């Protein structure tokens, strides 16, 4: 598979299917693993990194037949291509901007990705549309088992899987659910949610994980700790709390409609209007209006647009995607024009 072919389609996780898909965009689980016979990457010289990459890319090739994985050597990718993969959630910013031999194997459907030589030797990720904690865990656990048949991961009885950063040791698992919470943001109730989540040891992050801003009212809720609780317990913690947040967002939406249906309908329609007709638009403004529009569709205020299209637009209007679509390098001003033009095309009545 060629990287450029990806622009023709979007990942399966954007399809807006699965339980609670109006609020839950996606579920993701990742595992951090290290080969026991090598130092962690901070102390690994070039030769060790080459060897780790050779072993793990070989393992990914072995898995390829079962999972239809494509492996890319990240060092040979252009900056734009690396950013493109970050926007699609297939690699992390750390892998994109890192140094030395590193790579990624991901499935054609874009719901499995294995990063080599990121912060740890291996980061396995499984991504699904909607709320799908169990099926994510089943698949990632199976991939981990298949790898463990062939390689030895650093592990000790007391501290579990050993990772470069002590914050990940134990299970090495991060379970995250990405939620779209526009009504909680608009009513400013979101702060209460953050505080409650913090108290029970769950972290809240933006669209692109650690350190990223919450764009388009998207929030990733994930476990903070990895040691001392089993994978199933950590998953259950999230599974227990997510329905409460979904319920809270739904109640806020209902209240917004009840208080001022006309005002809300106006706000959503104006957002739609701007997206359909703007001649130049920033990424930030796009995200904000797409968020309104997405909520409007879910509330039945807008009827002529399917959710998967809106989900896709969040990703396809980002800088690297626009440049891939236009087959050229664009500065920020040119991107704003290209973004507006792309939005007009996608939102034109015949589509």
């Amino acid at each position, binding site marked *: 598979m060629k990287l450029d072919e990806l622009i023709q389609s979007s990942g399966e996780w954007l399809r807006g299917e699965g339980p609670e898909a109006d609020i839950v965009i996606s579920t993701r689980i990742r595992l951090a693993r*290290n080969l*026991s016979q*090598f*130092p*962690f*990457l*901070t*102390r690994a010289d070039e030769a060790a990194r080459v060897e780790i990459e050779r072993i793990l890319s070989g393992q990914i090739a072995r898995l390829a037949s079962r999972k239809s994985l494509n492996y890319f050597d990240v060092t040979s990718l252009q900056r734009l291509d690396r950013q493109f993969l970050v926007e699609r959630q297939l690699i992390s910013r750390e892998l994109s901007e890192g140094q030395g031999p590193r790579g990624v194997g991901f499935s054609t459907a874009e719901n499995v990705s294995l990063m080599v030589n990121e*912060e740890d030797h291996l980061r396995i990720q499984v991504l699904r549309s909607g709320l799908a904690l169990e099926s994510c865990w089943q698949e990632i*656990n199976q991939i*981990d*088992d298949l790898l*463990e*048949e062939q390689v*030895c*991961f*650093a*592990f*000790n*009885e*007391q*501290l*579990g*899987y*050993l990772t*470069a*950063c*002590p*914050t990940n*040791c*134990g*299970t090495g*698992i991060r379970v995250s659910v990405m939620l779209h919470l526009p009504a909680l943001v608009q009513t400013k109730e979101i702060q209460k949610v953050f*505080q409650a989540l*913090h*108290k029970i*040891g769950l972290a809240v992050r933006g669209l692109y994980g650690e350190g990223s801003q919450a764009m388009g009212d998207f929030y990733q809720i994930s476990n903070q*700790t*990895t*040691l*001392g*609780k*089993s*994978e*199933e*317990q950590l998953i259950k913690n999230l599974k227990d709390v997510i329905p409460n947040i979904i319920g809270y967002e739904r109640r806020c939406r209902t209240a917004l409609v009840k208080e001022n249906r006309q005002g809300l309908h106006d706000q959503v329609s104006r957002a739609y209007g701007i997206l359909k007709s703007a001649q130049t638009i920033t990424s930030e403004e796009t995200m904000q209006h797409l968020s309104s529009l997405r909520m409007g569709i879910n509330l039945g205020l807008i009827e002529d647009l399917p959710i998967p299209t809106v989900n896709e637009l969040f990703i396809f209007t980002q800088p690297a995607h626009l440049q891939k679509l236009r087959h050229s390098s664009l500065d920020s001003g040119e991107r704003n024009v290209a973004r507006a033009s792309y939005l007009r095309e996608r939102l034109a009545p015949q589509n």
Partner: protein
Amino acid sequence: MKCQTCPSPATLHITEIVKGVAAEHHFCDECAQQYLSQAEAKGNDLPPGVAADEEGESKLKELDQLACPNCGITFKEFRKQGRLGCPHDYVAFQEELLPLLESIHGETQHFGKVPKRTPDDSRKQYRLIKLRGELKVAIAEESYEQAAKLRDEIQQLEQETQTAPAEEETE
């Protein structure tokens, strides 16, 4: 959670290792800035009050010199970059890391997936350690039926680990 010095909500959470003991601090943005600049002005990263403790300082210096025999990383380098150098660091710096892990995770014992294949067949060793502990409890509680069951299981596991080719773990 509230800031520890003023009533604003805490947005910054700092874990500090002093003399091998982890301490948590919770600040709002403003107080965090103040705290960090104070620590900087003192020329080290110890919290005020502790910094004056000379004994503590020399102990910390000693601690910083501690190096992993496997990868060579010093504890100071780890403190600086927040990343360990190799899996063996968890053993080499165990005494210093355990309080830190406790403050991060609230736990210091893994409970969850165990790889099917581990170096030195440590999974069986781990199970043995656990079973022997349970046997002790069973005997103390005079649950002899349970104890007999555990003893059989232990004997079986011991035999299995003895027959493992590279392992000579005879009891």
